């Protein structure tokens, strides 16, 4: 293979958009949860399990976590693109981050619906 600078992958916009939209979702969820939890008169195990027994809370928590994983995947990929120069190593790291994110997603569902 010749060693030339190759650009023109024709993607990037979607990732950039996902990163911005996921940031808004995470901010909205974090603020709502923080305000709600601070306004509770007491916070113990019963209140906590009661809160997460609601389908809406579980769904929005999962949405928050999915946004977090997408956001983190794009952020880590951007760092790797800057600092890891070998294309092979970069691909391995990209695949590892995707696989770990998938595992975390499965684990999140198990935790949220196992409570």
């Amino acid at each position, binding site marked *: 293979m010749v060693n030339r*600078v190759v*650009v*023109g*992958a*024709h*993607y*990037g*916009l*979607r*990732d*950039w*958009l996902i990163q911005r939209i996921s940031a808004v979702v995470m901010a909205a969820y974090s603020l709502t949860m923080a305000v709600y939890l601070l306004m509770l008169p007491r916070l113990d195990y019963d209140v906590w399990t009661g809160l997460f027994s609601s389908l809406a809370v579980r769904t929005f928590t999962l949405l928050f976590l999915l946004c977090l994983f997408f956001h983190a995947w794009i952020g880590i990929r*951007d760092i790797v*693109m*800057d*600092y890891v120069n070998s294309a092979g190593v970069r691909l391995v790291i990209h695949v590892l981050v995707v696989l770990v994110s998938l595992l975390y997603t499965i684990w999140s569902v198990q935790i949220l619906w196992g409570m």
Partner: protein
Amino acid sequence: MKFKIYRYNPDTDTAPYMQDYDLDIEANGKMLLDAILLLKEQDDSLSVRKSCREGVCGSDAMNINGRNGLACTTPLASLKEPVVLRPLPGLPVIRDLIVDMTQFFKQYHSIKPYLINNDPPPETERLQSPEQRAHLNGLYECILCGCCTTACPSFWWNPDKFVGPAGLLQAYRFIADTRDQATSERLDDLEDPYRLFRCHTIMNCVDVCPKELNPTEAIGNIKDMMVKRLV
């Protein structure tokens, strides 16, 4: 006034070093370039690029006390002593304060910095309304001095792939031009994780631009147009 200037002559020096200079000069009303030219009279081996000496040609861009700027438009009285002068960061040094701008201009040329219009040329000129022309304000004034691009960390890491703020400002200058017909091709060309999306809105470019232009805003406008095209 005390100066500390980056010196490197590849023919005689094994490594760059900082040289101290002392200059008897009344700072008020003078620009940094005046002082550099007087220093050059003291020591004619000191190498620097300059031409118009009034902020139009952009050839005397350098790193002044850690900040990129034009020596000819930087008031001497505004500088803290010792005044530390270095070449623009992130580009190969040819000698002293002179850098090799090949990579910078390669990126500039890659965005096709000219009007693309396949209609037969009209007899007089391609007209724009005053409103259409107003969109080019803040874009066409760029003098390609390189201050912004060499202050951008994304350009430092990927100078061969990231177009850089100066190039992207010019890309938007032609995207925004109503006489240009290649908008879609220009957007296609920039839709790349490196060419455009290495910009992480660090805004060093806006901070240092000696013409007070806003490449970050232009890059944001390009991204907005891509979103508009997508949805």
